[in-house]
């Protein structure tokens, strides 16, 4: 064969290799695949492979009555289910022109903040585990369990609450519930120093987390980053304050920010948000006893309920970022289309891919966890 006709078979260079992280991997939050191309210990390129948690919820919702979809909504984001429920209900309420009674609004805020607390406790543990420290994870899950106890008492379910309904909530708070919320919040407050000692002032963790997955504010805005991830780059934006819903404009709370935009900054923002959430929850339980009234406005028979035609985009601040629902009704008894704008969809796909370039292998998992990207929300 003549040299000019010889075509070499193209092979990858010997110092590059491919590595699959996930879909079943302790370094992945949920079921999610991330394909890496590495050069030694450095990532050259990461490719997100979503879809392992695709349950087809958005399409399923088109085939079910409006009321039946309540059972689907909390399942879309498992760690932080309440904003899903509330946002769907807000969307339907806006389409129908329903006015939520005041007591229901306060109960919704209480749920949202408790859910945020539970989600953050979950995330601390996850982030710490990616750096090899497992105790905060056990602590986080155990403390989160107490919040789940509160949800069990209020809603009848620990994770899938199915408690919010267009028009309000399904049940009133049981007697003595607010006292138990208060004692749980007191307990969580008392635990914060322990977490700080173990995790947030732990120099090993601080050094591991600093400088990992850094993004600038411009990059964050360009990539559609929201929530604590955006606030960690210095931009003070929170849907609760900037596009208030329910009774948030009656409540007192700060919006913590950090400047660095790296994993450490993001974790810090969440740590400070936990404190703010506890503060909001305390205000709610102080206000609730004096707010009387129904917990639901009247709705038609759910089996014969046509929601007026229209489309609406309602957003709330979940623990992961700006969560929104886009609901389209054609005037029938089933949604024409529902679409979830899940914050994790940006974070887990494009942001993670971009941030992983140049990252060390051992920091990839930490990057994903520090972004608090929740695959159930990505895939739906």
């Amino acid at each position: 064969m003549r040299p000019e006709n010889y075509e070499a078979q193209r092979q990858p260079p010997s110092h590059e290799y491919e590595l699959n992280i996930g879909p079943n991997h302790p370094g992945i939050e949920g079921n999610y695949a991330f394909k890496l191309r590495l050069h030694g210990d450095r990532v050259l390129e990461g490719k997100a492979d979503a879809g392992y948690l695709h349950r087809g919820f958005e399409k399923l919702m088109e085939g079910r009555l409006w009321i039946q979809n309540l059972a689907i909504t909390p399942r879309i984001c498992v760690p932080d289910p309440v904003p899903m429920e509330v946002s769907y209900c807000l969307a339907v309420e806006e389409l129908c022109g329903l006015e939520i009674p005041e007591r229901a609004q306060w109960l919704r805020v209480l749920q949202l903040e408790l859910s945020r607390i539970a989600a953050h406790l979950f995330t601390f543990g996850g982030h710490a585990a990616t750096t090899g420290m497992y105790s905060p994870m056990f602590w986080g899950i155990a403390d989160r369990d107490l919040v789940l106890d509160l949800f069990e008492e209020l809603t009848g379910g620990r994770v899938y609450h199915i408690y919010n309904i267009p028009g309000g909530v399904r049940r009133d708070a049981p007697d003595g519930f607010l006292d138990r919320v208060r004692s749980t919040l007191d307990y969580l407050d008392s635990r914060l120093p322990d977490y700080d000692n173990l995790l947030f002032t732990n120099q090993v963790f601080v050094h591991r987390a600093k400088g990992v997955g850094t993004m600038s504010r411009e990059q964050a805005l360009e990539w559609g980053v929201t929530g604590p991830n955006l606030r960690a780059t210095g931009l003070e934006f929170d849907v609760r304050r900037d596009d208030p819903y329910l009774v948030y404009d009656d409540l007192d709370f700060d919006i913590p920010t950090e400047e660095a935009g790296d994993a450490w900054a993001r974790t810090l923002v969440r740590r400070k948000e936990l404190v703010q959430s506890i503060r909001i929850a305390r205000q709610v339980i102080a206000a609730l006893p004096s707010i009387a009234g129904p917990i639901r406005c009247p709705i038609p028979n759910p089996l014969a309920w046509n929601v007026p035609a229209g489309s609406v985009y309602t957003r709330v601040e979940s623990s992961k970022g700006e969560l929104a629902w886009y609901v389209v009704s054609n005037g029938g008894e089933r949604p024409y289309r529902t679409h979830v704008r899940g914050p994790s969809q940006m974070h887990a796909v494009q942001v993670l891919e971009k941030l992983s370039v140049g990252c060390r292998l051992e920091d990839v998992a930490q990057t994903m966890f520090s972004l608090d990207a929740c695959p159930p929300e990505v895939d739906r």
Partner: protein
Amino acid sequence: MRDIDYKDKGGILNPLKSLSFFGRSSVTVPLEPRAASANYRGFHLNDWEACIGCSTCQKVCDNAAITMVSIPDLPQDPAKGIRNLRPAIDYGRCCWCALCVDLCPTGSISLSREYVHTCLDSELDSYFVLPDSNGIHGTPYPKGWAKSEDADLVALERARMEELPPPERIGNFNEIVAGYDANQAIIEASRCVQCGMCFDACPTHMNAPEYIRAIWKGDLEQAVREIYRTNPFAHTCGRVCTHRCEDACSVGHRGTPIAIRWLKRYAMDAVDHERVKRIAAEGKARFLSGKRVAVVGAGPAGLTAAFDLIKQGYEVTVFEARPKAGGMVRYGIPDYRLPQDRIDRDVDVIASLGVKIRYGTQVGTDITMAELERDYDAVILTIGLWMGRSTRIPGSDHPRVKRAVTLLRDVAEKVKVSVPASAIVIGGGNVAMDVARTIARLQKQTYGQVKVTVTALEDLEHFLADPEEIKEAREEGVEILPARGPQEILFKPRKYEVDKIHGLRTWRVLSIFDAQGRFAPRHDEADEQIHEGEMVVEAIGQAAEVEVLGEELTERLDWNRGRLEIDDQGRTNLSWLWAAGDMVRGPDVVSAVADGHRVALSINGVLSIREDAA
């Protein structure tokens, strides 16, 4: 709570403070399942006594986890809306959302506080459960999420029907109910859970769930179409039916039943009459069978049979003694309950299909049964119960002692009636209420005031009239005296004229039925009252005017204790003669409609047998 300075403060030793946790007891999960919260959504419980098998839980379940299973030993009672079905849950599908609990009309299904179930692979069937009050494992766990007032999603309250208040209705015969407007009808129709108990309970099995759904969708022509599948007397039934459907309605177990009757009224009024005629004519046979059927009596039973038969290609002639059709519906039910122009519409739809109605033709006098036997292939007797009974107490043969049915007929025919300034009505059923309220209106129009006294054997708890009738009658100024037994009519003697009625003497009734439930009235003769009135109207019972059949036919027919002997198809022992309606089933409009269908089906079955096969 204290804030913390995160700026890298604290030394490398800070985490070691957590070593103190070795000294604390760890968080453990006990081996026994811990008690769930009071509102917990665990495995199902179902109170089989309260459950009516309506299947609403099955309909609302978003995962199709519920299947209704028929349990043979359980009671079923279509009239009360009770089925022997019970829900079975597939826990592989159930997501414990508790929508079934919130939408259960009776509140029988609930979720318990039990949440643990494990089994071997060979026991996978244990995930399919037929919940009862004992729970999935037969161990008593308390209820968790159960029906409560704030979590109840059943639409318990009915849309209010506007009605004329007593002062506005007493001086006229205008229809009392105003009817629903479009909004009210849609809201009322939306309450329906589509269980079909109404269908089961209706004597003629009207497709009520379907027409209610059509009204909710705004498709009123479809509603009329569904109505005409079973009932060509819908303007009438939509106003005066005895609504067995509403008595069986599953929402009615805890709330007010769906206003199935008013919704029928709404749909029939909302569609243009010409459109109704065309809808009713759908499915009419395009051929003539060549057979001729005669119907005696143009009431609901007769005209329903005529409607069915004309659509199947028979030539139908109806013989009606009165000048207009409708039977007892026109000549017994006053206008304030059922305006005559609505009856005209029902009749017009049937007549427009080609049914010939010969008015003013009394069978027995103007035409004989023998002629009908000769000239027609089948004859249906639907002569109703037009003879009013009398108590035959002393004085009851006076000309101003009237039978209620006769008086009502005269008022309906706009015959001049001599209105008494005061009247007494004997009887406690709906006919008594009708005639009392009719007289009350005539008195108001003639004298400006009402003086009617109703005496009945029954005490108030057992009055045969509908509670609404009693209430409305009282509002109109009718005095109702229960537990009075009529003894004698008293007269004021006058010299040159017929004695004038002074009033009625009654004794108090102690009991009507004996221990075995047989009619055996006992009176307290010491408690005697005299009720004053110029006219006495008896509304104590009715009978069929079977003399029109003539002696010869009466001998040929089989009788069963005074009524015509018919088989379950409505056919007499004579192969050409059927009977239907009030005369064989008792007074009720919708039962008469059902009966009309029954005999039409039978006649079609008999007459459509081809001659060469006969």
